């Protein structure tokens, strides 16, 4: 029943945003903006060292080529306060000539969804021009992976797991909640700076469960799997057009959490817990990173940037150069991006309340 409810909610928001973007595209008849001789600043609310930096540095030169007038595109890093500092800064900016864009990530979306006191920005004000999806893969040491009976994770329920956690309210809440739903006893060791440190902890044998986003999994964990020191457990999956979770196209051979949950008696793919997990998974992964123009951007500017990102996607070599760095995930523009934005920045009040209470009970984190 409640799966149906989620789907319906997604469908509703889909329709609403489709209507909204239709209105936008109706105006988008004419001339784009010309950025010749200008410098486009792309603000990333993280440091030079994170995943968002990689993503922006990948797109920046391509975007520069694709925009009319070939402006210089520079990535500006504005880290602080778990990315809310940069986002608050962007909220204050007025649209001028289309030379300012912003890149947000799941770590920006989550504080917004959870009502973090530091959030002074509103996604509704911003104009999305690109949404990049990703996925995540959980993995285990081989001796623990053996205890899984096919997809049934019940055999792992007696084990003591240690997981290197970046922070209770970060993207890490998606894996930790998933493991809890499977009945696993996972203790979070906090203070990890970046998922790379988590993987290192796993390699050192201190942590015995971990997850990585797709691109890091491909470069960092696949060699371990080949060497026999790690075994994939499950992916978070991907969303199909109907809003259902299906196998991740980058990892078609690894079951999704939904499948594992279905196969494990202790876990249910319905109910408020599942709905909350799914809502935050959708906010964190299928539209993890987005590019925005500021509040009040002209239709011309939105059309220009949308077209530029479409041209980037249409490059003959795009599949090849993006596959390794971003994984095989949809790079959405136009209506699809707007839909993705809507699903990534809206969760039902029930899901929010559930997660807020869960964080309070499990970690003592108070968000008020």
């Amino acid at each position, binding site marked *: 029943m409640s799966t149906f409810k989620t789907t319906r909610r997604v469908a509703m928001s889909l329709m609403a945003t489709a209507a909204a973007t239709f209105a936008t595209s109706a105006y988008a008849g004419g001339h784009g903006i010309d950025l010749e001789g200008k*410098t486009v600043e792309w603000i990333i609310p993280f*440091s*030079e*060292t994170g995943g968002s*930096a*990689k993503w922006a*540095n*990948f797109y*920046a*030169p*391509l975007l520069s080529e694709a925009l009319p007038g070939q402006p*210089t*595109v*520079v*990535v*500006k890093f*504005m*880290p*602080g*306060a778990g990315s809310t*500092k940069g986002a608050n800064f962007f909220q204050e900016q007025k649209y001028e000539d289309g030379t300012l864009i912003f890149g947000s990530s799941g770590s920006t979306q989550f504080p917004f969804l959870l009502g973090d*006191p*530091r959030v002074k920005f509103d996604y509704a004000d911003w104009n999305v021009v690109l949404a990049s999806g990703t996925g995540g893969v959980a993995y285990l040491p081989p001796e623990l992976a053996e205890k899984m009976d096919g997809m049934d994770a019940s055999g792992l329920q007696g084990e*003591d797991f*240690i997981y290197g956690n970046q*922070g*209770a*309210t970060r993207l890490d809440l998606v894996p930790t909640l998933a493991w809890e739903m499977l009945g696993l006893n996972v*203790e979070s*060791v*906090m*203070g990890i*700076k970046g998922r*790379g*440190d988590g*993987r*290192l*902890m796993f*390699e*050192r*044998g*201190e942590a015995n469960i971990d997850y990585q986003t797709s691109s*890091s999994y491909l*470069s*960092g964990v*696949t*060699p*371990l799997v080949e*060497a026999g020191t790690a075994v994939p457990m499950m992916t978070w999956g991907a969303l199909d057009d109907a809003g259902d979770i299906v196998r991740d196209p980058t990892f078609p051979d690894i079951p999704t959490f939904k499948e594992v949950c279905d196969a494990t008696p202790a876990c249910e793919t319905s109910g408020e817990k599942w709905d909350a997990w799914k809502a935050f998974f959708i906010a964190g992964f299928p539209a993890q990173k987005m590019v925005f123009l500021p509040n009040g951007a002209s239709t011309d500017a939105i059309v220009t940037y949308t077209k530029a990102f479409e041209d980037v996607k249409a490059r003959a*070599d795009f599949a*090849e*150069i993006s596959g*390794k*760095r971003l994984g095989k995930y949809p790079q959405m523009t136009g209506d699809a991006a707007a839909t993705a934005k809507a699903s990534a920045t809206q969760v039902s009040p029930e899901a929010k309340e559930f997660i807020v209470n869960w964080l309070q009970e499990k*970690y*003592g*984190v108070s968000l008020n």
Partner: protein
Amino acid sequence: MEVIMEALPAFGDAWGLILQPIVLGYLVLGVVMGLCIGVFPGLGGIAGLSLLLPFMFGMDPVLGLALMIGMVAVVPTSDTFASVLMGIPGSSASQATVLDGFPMAKKGMAARALSAAFASSLFGGLVGASFLTIFILIARPIVLEFRTPELLMITIFGLSMVGILAGRVAIKGIVAAGLGMLIGTIGEGASSGDLRMSSYDFPYLTDGLKLVIVGLGIFAIPEIISLLRKDRAISDQPQLGGGWIVGVRDWFANIWLSMRCSIIGVVVGVIPGLGGSVVDWIAYGHAVQTTPDKSNFGKGEVRGVIGPESSNNAKEGGGLVPTLLFGIPGSGSMAIFIGAIALLGSGQIEVGPAMLKNNLDITYAIVWLLALANVVGTVICIAASGGIAKLTTIRFVLLAPFLFMIISFAAFQSGQNLMDLVALFAIGFLGILMRRFDWSRPAFLIGFVLSNPAETYANQAVQIASSRFRKSFGEGIEYMFTPIVIVLLIITVLSVVIGLRQAKHIMAEGDVKSGSKRAPFVFMLLVTGYIAYAFYDAASIPSFSRDRTFPMFVAGVSLVGCVALIIRMMLKPETDVMFADREREGDDAEATHGLWPTLGWFAALLVLTSLLGFILALAVFLFSFMLMRARLSAPMAAGYTAAGIMFMCTMAWLLNRDFPPGLLQEYVDLPWPLT
């Protein structure tokens, strides 16, 4: 041996990749760019690599690597200029160099100090590269042996260097380190995000203070202010003695020290998670402990320069191991390096566990490019050192405003917030007082640098260990007390015992006379007050949060120290070393200008910036400073001002950075660079 035989073909391939004129040309280009950026304090490899990033996309991998490695490799070489000549730690890698390098410059031996440093850097870089050539093949399993307890132990070993640098009163040094650690805990805790000494109503502090700001504030500002008050050149000798040949000879005479420190550098650099922030202190400590006559340390002992400089270039080589083999950056610049590698060519180089298997030739090319870059960089630096050393003979009053300009700019880059300048000023003021009352600033800085790793590793080790103990007692013990931990523990204990016994002879702050009781006592009370408040603040964090434990522990220990010091102050006469005060006697007391008017100039720059924005404020500041303080003619002052502003703008434009805006910019839209 077998592994090495297998690697031999890759050796040849790697040389084939490197030894092409165009590759070497790019390497030299990178080196030159790195030198130009590295000489400015606070702008290290991160700024340089960010500058190169836009060009990396689709570039031929070997050319791109040559360019980037050339740049990264020489930053720890070129930042020596600022450390030795101005007493400004150019980056975290050259903090310890300041301790003896700057006193040498003051004695007119800048060129000697510089060339000794460069020779050591070169040697360190080469030792690092040759060590890595073999080690990188077997590094993976060894690095994985360094788990959280081992990392914690290395951090504690780094902290034990406080023992050597504590100064004449050991407890005072320990309290200084505790204060540094407490300042390092300001902001959101790593464990559950609880706030220490900050609030969301005042967001600046929630992210904590950055090393750039604390390093520049605690070392550079006190030195600049002190020199400025004397109104003469940095060097007290009109004629510069000790040319660059002498420095190279100094290095050669201490080649074994240089060798040992290089090994320390490469080994500590290999361990992921610590970065290089402790390496130079450990090397400095080692240099002190192995020198029979310790009386010259802190006053211009060349071994105090050779030690840290040998280690910091070797560390860059060591840092490649976690970067290339694990895909985990050892430092901020390495993180950008990883990102940039992915942009090269068609992205075929993928750092991480598969690097050795798929790209062994590239791996070796990187290691040896690093060595080559060190050679090129050192040759250029040594050639330039004689000329650049002449800066120390210029009237300092002509240099000081530009130094203020550069460190303000560097500080602003860390958070892009006007508060960065306020923080720099505040820490600078603390540094001035610590210097005045003979509190060890190196101890403070070590405490600050190691505060975060100490807290994080302690919390994690306790948590993981208790999980193991729950399984079985034996498993817990096995996890905590590995052979590596035990060896490190013994070294640490020895180092503390020996260090404290020797600390009396090593005056990191120079010889300071004692004077009256009141001023040192007031400062003591202020420090105690802050520590007590920090304790109270941490104690008010809910008890289930791990974020309270570390600051409470540090503050508790420091408070005990404070009480002991206060009791001693009450008992002893005012001639006791406890009451050291630079304003009583010596250079500072006889200075031409008072402390407050001199500090006032800097405060004026700050206030003007908050009103007019940085560039306008800088123009006013430079012009009036040159006119009134340096007593230049109006046209000359205008010329200096224009040159300074031009320089600043070019720099910011190249690096694509902004300046701090002021109140004016809230109301009026101004074109760059006035924004």
